[in-house]
């Protein structure tokens, strides 16, 4: 049939044109980025579209096939990632933050970096990723070939030609990826060309699928309601999904979404703005929703219109073809082509980064002569390794395709791959959320999960008798029935996929947690663990190097070879400047090595960078001694800064004390002035009268005898007043200086009060103060200085007599024995004004303004005495009259007899 051949030729031309178009877009994007106008290239929309590499040819074509075979199951595959983006947004944010702060280049790098930059883990994850991804790449090649075949309209192409198609496609993809995927060595830098191309492809595939859908619904199905009716009529419209499998697939696709190398590449590595996640969290589910919108209508109408036995995986293509819509079919083909190529390109970049960083480079470092990092052209080696890895990965996919001969049900390979890469999930999530997760745990979990996945899913997926003897399926290996690969330990009736997912993840997670709990992480692991888990608290790296032997020049030469001369020089200059600019090259400090290592990690991965710096600095890995040294240094710095802090606190305290002392001195000086001025006043006042009257007596002639007597007695009284004042002052001075000797004696309180009342209750004029007492309560034996106590009582009684302003002055003395012995003196006057209550115990303060002959020292003396006796004296407000309470410690009192 020449028509079909012509059609194929046209298709090849369209393919080449489309490929050239993608090359042009990638070139343009790189050019724009190189001119620094890449702002729109880095928009959240482009980021979201690039995530759509999740939708490969498997979902583009296979969703319809899946719908035909198992109804709405295809939705689960879209639901998983949607749930991750909507509900696990915070996990993604943490991943992205870690990826950016640690300059993570791949899933393997993430896991390796977290568990102490372990290359073993990196290699393990890389192998897992390669094994998991290769079938997937084969699947893409197969879908392109199948879709080519669909255009041949029944003409069976020779097997060789099929292979040629796949080979050409593979070669073209490898070329594209090599050109645009290895433009910059730093895997952490964005591949603008690639990202832009896959964003365009994302638009093409969505547009193509929607176009086919619109054609099917409105062109073939006779409109929306008609189509819905047809869906209802077909058996597809009925919900016939096993709930368990549905949930399992949602979970599986969610897990895979986080672990798939290509998704990680666009989600984390290519991300350059955390906030883009916010947009993606709603826009990407929306994209997936649109992708799944017309799947069921296409499936239903396809089943109706196409002949029995047509491959439902190709309905998207064959439906327009069968209706003579050549143009639409080509568009649909381009959609599928886009899905396949974008997946292969990104997967090849992601895998090649892993392979070159974790397999090729370590091997090269091991076998190259010592010091190769200094003398060899590492930059070239890395680039070459990366490029060869890309070609290797794509060709591996091609080989797999050729050898497997192309399976019929595309979706099955997809799930096998999903379950394989999902094995990284426990180590990954555990690593970023659990500080206790250890390398041993991660390795055990990965190995166990990988083995379980191989045994229960991967090997059986080739079919009974291909890689696994048929007998094992029915009766288990060596007749051990409980080890049947699809019915382990009696889980007989479980869906094989779920069964495998269940066992591999359970064993993986179990081993991971168990071994982590019982193993002790290496020092570097613990440092990295803290960095990862607490990434939001501190986004700086650990100081894991002590650089005392390394030469800056060596490091410089090596860095130039990896980063390129300009970038390396910039980095070193920046560091030297940061260190204080003592020379053109920075000192080899732990901080500098750490920065350098992180910069290099962006190009060659954390483990390799660590190893390369290690070759120069000496010591391939960080020893406990190194860490101890770092810890010591840190501890010393902390101690030093703590000491500085203490000193400055002490200074602040001293300053505060000085300020306080100064304030106190000022206060004292004011007090001293006031005191002197008071003393002066108290002394000069009686002196004035004495002098004036003595001069009168001396100078005045003709004084009457009565006058003479009166003036002489004034002189006499004032002299006594002066003496009393001096006595009080001396008494107070002695008390205040603590020079007083207490004369401790035993006596009864009522006797002391009796003496005080006798001495103070009446003034010279004979006016008596009425005093009320309760003698029974006063029968308390005291052991104290009874004379001093009596002095206090006399003062209080005399004050009441002098200052109580009631018409019938009365003083009540009440004694209460309790925890402390309280003796209250309460009169029936107006009391002391509340503003004066605070100061009455101060020297020279008088209870009232009325002159009453006192110097205002009485209460001050009382307070001094009572304090010496171990008690205190207070004014009790709110008792009506003035009320003073003398309280003494109870141990002065010996219970009344």
């Amino acid at each position: 049939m020449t028509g079909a051949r012509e059609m194929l030729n046209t298709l090849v031309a369209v393919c080449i044109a489309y490929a050239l178009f993608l090359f042009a877009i990638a070139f343009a994007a790189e050019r724009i980025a190189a001119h620094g106008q890449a702002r729109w290239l880095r928009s959240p929309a482009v980021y979201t579209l690039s995530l759509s590499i999740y939708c490969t040819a498997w979902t583009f074509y296979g969703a319809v096939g899946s719908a035909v075979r198992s109804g709405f199951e295809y939705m689960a595959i879209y639901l998983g990632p949607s749930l991750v983006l909507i509900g696990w947004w915070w996990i993604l944010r943490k991943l992205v933050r870690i990826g950016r702060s640690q300059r993570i280049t791949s899933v393997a790098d993430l896991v390796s970096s977290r568990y102490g930059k372990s290359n073993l883990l990196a290699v393990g994850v890389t192998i897992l990723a390669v094994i998991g991804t290769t079938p997937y790449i084969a699947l893409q090649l197969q879908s392109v070939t199948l879709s080519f075949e669909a255009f041949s309209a029944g003409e069976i192409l020779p097997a060789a030609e099929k292979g040629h198609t796949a080979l050409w496609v593979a070669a073209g993809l490898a070329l594209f990826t090599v050109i645009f995927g290895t433009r910059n060595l730093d895997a952490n830098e964005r591949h603008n060309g690639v990202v832009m191309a896959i964003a365009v492809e994302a638009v093409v595939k969505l547009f193509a699928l929607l176009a086919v859908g619109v054609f099917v619904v409105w062109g073939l199905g006779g409109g929306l309601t008609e189509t819905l009716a047809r869906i209802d009529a077909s058996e597809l419209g009925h919900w016939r999904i096993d709930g368990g499998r549905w949930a399992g697939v949602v979970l599986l696709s969610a897990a895979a979404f986080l672990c798939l190398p290509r998704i990680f590449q666009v989600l984390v590595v290519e991300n350059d703005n955390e906030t883009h996640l916010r947009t993606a969290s709603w826009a990407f589910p929306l994209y997936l929703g649109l992708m799944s919108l017309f799947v069921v209508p296409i499936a239903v109408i396809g089943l109706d219109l196409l002949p029995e036995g047509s491959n439902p995986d190709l309905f998207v293509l064959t439906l327009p073809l069968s209706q003579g819509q050549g143009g639409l079919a080509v568009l649909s083909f381009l959609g599928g082509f886009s899905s396949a190529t974008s997946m292969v390109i990104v997967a090849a970049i992601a895998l090649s980064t892993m392979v070159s960083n974790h397999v090729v480079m370590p091997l090269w470092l091991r076998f190259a002569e010592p010091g190769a990092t200094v003398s060899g052209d590492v930059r070239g080696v890395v680039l070459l390794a990366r490029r060869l890895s890309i070609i290797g990965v794509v060709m591996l996919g091609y080989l797999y395709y050729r050898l497997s001969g192309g399976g019929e049900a595309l979706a099955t390979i997809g799930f096998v791959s999903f379950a394989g890469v999902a094995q990284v999930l426990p180590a990954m999530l555990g690593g970023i959320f659990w500080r206790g997760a250890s390398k041993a745990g991660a390795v055990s979990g990965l190995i166990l999960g990988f083995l379980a996945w191989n045994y229960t899913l991967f090997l059986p997926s080739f079919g009974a008798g291909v890689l696994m003897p048929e007998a094992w399926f029915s009766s288990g290996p060596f007749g051990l029935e409980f080890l049947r690969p699809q019915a382990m330990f009696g889980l007989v009736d479980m869906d094989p996929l779920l069964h495998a997912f269940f066992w591999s993840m359970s064993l993986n997670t179990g081993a991971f947690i168990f071994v982590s709990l019982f193993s002790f992480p290496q020092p570097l692991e613990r440092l990295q663990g803290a960095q990862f888990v607490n990434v939001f608290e501190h986004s700086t790296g650990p100081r894991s190097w002590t650089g005392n032997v390394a030469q800056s020049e060596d490091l410089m030469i090596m860095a130039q070879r990896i980063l390129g001369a300009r970038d390396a020089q910039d980095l070193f200059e920046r560091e030297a400047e940061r260190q204080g600019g003592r020379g053109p090259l920075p000192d080899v400090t732990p901080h500098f090595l750490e920065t350098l290592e992180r910069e290099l990690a962006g190009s060659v991965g954390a483990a390799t960078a660590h190893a390369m710096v290690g070759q120069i600095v000496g010591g391939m890995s960080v020893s406990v001694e190194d860490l101890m040294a770092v810890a010591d240094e840190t501890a010393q710095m902390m101690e030093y800064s703590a000491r500085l802090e203490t000193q400055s606190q002490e200074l602040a305290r001293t300053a505060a004390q000085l300020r306080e002392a100064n304030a106190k001195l000022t206060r004292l000086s004011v007090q001293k002035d006031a005191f002197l001025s008071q003393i002066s006043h108290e002394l000069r006042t009686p002196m004035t009268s004495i002098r004036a009257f003595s001069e009168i007596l001396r100078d005045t002639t003709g004084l009457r005898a009565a006058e003479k007597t009166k003036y002489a007695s004034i002189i006499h009284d004032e002299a006594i007043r002066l003496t009393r004042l001096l006595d009080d002052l001396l008494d107070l001075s002695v008390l205040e200086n603590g020079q007083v000797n207490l004369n401790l004696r035993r006596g009864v309180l009522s006797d002391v009060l009796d003496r005080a009342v006798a001495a103070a209750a009446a003034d010279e004029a004979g006016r008596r103060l009425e005093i009320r007492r309760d003698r029974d309560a006063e029968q308390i034996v005291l052991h104290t200085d009874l004379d001093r106590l009596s002095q206090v009582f006399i003062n209080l009684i005399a004050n009441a007599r002098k200052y109580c302003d009631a018409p019938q002055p009365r003083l009540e003395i009440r004694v209460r024995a309790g925890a402390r012995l309280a003796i209250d003196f309460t009169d029936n006057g107006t009391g002391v004004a509340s503003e004066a209550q605070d100061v009455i115990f101060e020297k020279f303060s008088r209870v009232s303004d009325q002159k009453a002959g006192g110097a205002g020292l009485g209460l001050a003396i009382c307070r001094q005495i009572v304090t010496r006796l171990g008690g205190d004296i207070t004014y009790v407000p709110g008792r009506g009259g003035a009320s003073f309470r003398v309280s003494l410690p109870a141990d002065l009192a010996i219970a009344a007899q």
Partner: protein
Amino acid sequence: MSKHVLLIEDEPNIIEAISFILSREGLAVETHSDGTTANEKLRGAHPDLLILDVMLPGKSGYDILRELRADPATAALPVLMLTARGQSRDREMAEREGVSAFMSKPFANSEMLDTVRSLLNGPPGNA
């Protein structure tokens, strides 16, 4: 007509002493011992000379002096101030408030008489 002296002082013995000395010189002496009502007393008494103690109950002598200097009726009244504190700061404060003469306690009776006489015979220099 004998000159009229108002003495504002709260110590009874000092009141008696000053009254005695001035009365014997033929001066009419009126006394008052509460600071708060001193200015009212002064407006009613129309003295030729005021002798004012600094430390008075209720109101200080400085305050009384400031108020009487602010009142036009008494702004020119000769005022002799007495203080028992006798620090130079007290003298400065009194002079700032416009005192005519200042004397610290205890004083010689003759000194008191001389000062009172010179204040009653007009401002110093005019005599």
